[in-house]
């Protein structure tokens, strides 16, 4: 009887953990922001971010690592675009690698990320 009760408790904990994990995925704020940017620019902003920016900016811009957390930046869209294009040591500049529209999409994505 005791064993059965503890089994039920373990199942309940597993269920709660599973629901929490699912809800974490469902509530990934970068997905919501990316959907709006993709609708406007017609690309796949998270793929672009992963391909070019992820080495330094973790969690699609939500986490600080070698590069700063981008969510909540105080820079304007124009300033973010300028930094993406020209870089600032040690950040490389991407003006020869990305189109103007890609830079703009990245900047608008970064500015739209929720951050405090």
């Amino acid at each position, binding site marked *: 009887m005791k064993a059965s009760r503890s089994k039920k408790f373990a199942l309940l904990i597993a269920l709660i953990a599973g629901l929490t994990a699912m809800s974490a*995925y469902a509530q990934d704020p970068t997905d919501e922001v990316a959907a709006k940017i993709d609708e406007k620019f017609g690309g796949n902003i998270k793929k672009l971010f992963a391909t070019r920016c992820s080495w330094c900016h973790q969690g699609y811009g939500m986490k600080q690592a*070698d590069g700063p957390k981008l969510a909540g930046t105080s820079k304007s869209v124009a300033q973010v675009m300028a930094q993406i294009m020209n870089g600032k040591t040690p950040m490389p500049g991407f003006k*020869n690698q990305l189109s103007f529209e890609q830079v703009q999409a990245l900047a608008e994505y970064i500015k739209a990320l929720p951050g405090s």
Partner: protein
Amino acid sequence: MKRWTYKGVAKTLSAVAFVGIASQALAGDVTWDRLMNADKDANNWLMYHQSFKGWHYSGLDQVNADNVKNLHVAWLHTPSASKRGIQSFPLAVDGVLYYTSSSGQVWALDGATGAVIWRYQAKIDTERAEGTFYNPYNRGLAIGYGKVYIGTVDGRMIALDAKNGKVVWDNTILSVEKGNKGFTGAPVIVKDKVIIGSNGGELSGCCGPIFAVNAQTGEVAWQFDTIGGDERSRQSWGNDSWKIGGGGGWMTGSYDPKTNTVWWGTANPAPDYDYAGDNWKTDGPRPGDNLYSSSVVVLDADSGELKSYFQEMPHDAWDFDAAPGEFVTLDKGGKHYMLHPNKGGIIFVYNADQVGGGNQLKVENAYMLGETYNYIKGVDPKTGQLIGRRDLPEGKHTNVCPAIDGAISWNTGSFNPGTGLYYKIGQEWCFDIEVVKADRPADFSGQAYFGASWTATHPQGKKAYGHVTGRDPLSGKIKWRTEFKYPPLASLMSTKGNLVFVPGADGNFHALDARTGKELWKFNNGIGHHGGVISYMAGGKQYIAVVSGWGSHVSGNYGPLFGHPFTEMPTDAGQLVVFSL
């Protein structure tokens, strides 16, 4: 009559060399004979790996386990360029200490006092250098034939007069036409040549070359392309993906006089991470083994011909380079071994006698140094093959260990012939990652080329941590293990005085008992370390020199993982700190 050319004037102006007043220590010439016998020359530290044995061992014992408690700062030097800390490896020749700092700055100092003898600042092509993520690292220099040699982040090699820092030659070695960019590692002198490898594992370029240049003229003597250079390599990259496959050999390798071969570790393939998952042999952005990325290559020292190789990470799906340049030569029972650490936390032990014919190296043993890994289940000790790969197909994956930063970083361990132990740092951390289908960039474009976004995390049920072990180098059997709250990232040095020096991540510089791992002394240098440590004699006194300074892709994770003191640690500072009794 000497003709002045614009190019010549520009080169002269590009070199801002300061030469100090006389009465300084003067280094004797470093000949090939001296380099070949560096292991017997305890008073000096003549090359990156101390000698061609690669032991990072000092035969000095004036400072020892009994008196290390009295070690104190003798002098300090603060370079004017230390962006991303100092990652350099100092060298010491006849009482003169040489080292580099960020962006191609070179210093020659009096080893007893720290007085500046000369300084050189290379003028860097910032447009080219800032096109990479490796700027403005510089990890050291080579000395020989009256010259100091460095590579630069804009693809040049420069030879300076060791006495005054004036430019002897300054040559662009690395072409950007195939998407390659520059050098960050220290060169190594092998006979009449200077060897250096390029970076680029995260760029859609080719072919990650390793160069040998004439030590007197700077002309390229041979070039070995780590990817796409021969038919076997090209066949191992489906869809001609070698043209965007990255590669490189960005850390300093070594030389084995017994077989006249250069041993070099190569970088990962691009893109980092592969959405094909288990189907990597036929599908994805780079189908196949991707030779000779994440491999050890053994090259004829005179011609650059590939004598042997071993791919430590076939189709590297985790960015676990073989680029650590540490090659530890060991002779036991009539056999000649070469030990090499891989970023994936594996120590490979190769048979160093059986090289030749372009064949695979014979693995004598392979063992795990990492502790919390789950990217593989293990490694076959007889063949060195990975067991139970965890490939990462498109989508989200949690708690992949170790993280991209690896269980072993690019700095070196140390072997102590007195204790018979090999000392090595291990780092234990993980990450959550989402792998994406990256679009294929243009061939030879040299663009940033990754296939994922990730976030650093702790191993399940435990905070990220580090460890230093003292173990039998061939079997891997551990004699002692000391755990560190913050994984150290710098090189180790062991000494005849029964000490192992561990430059720590939090700024503490530790001396451990080489026999037991017990801490005997520490001093807080005030900022983390991720460069070299050496010992040398000057004026009859033993000195221990270590570089400090923080800031890199790997160290960038310490703030998010550990918080204080890393959240407040600057990434544009650092010093050379020199200790004596």
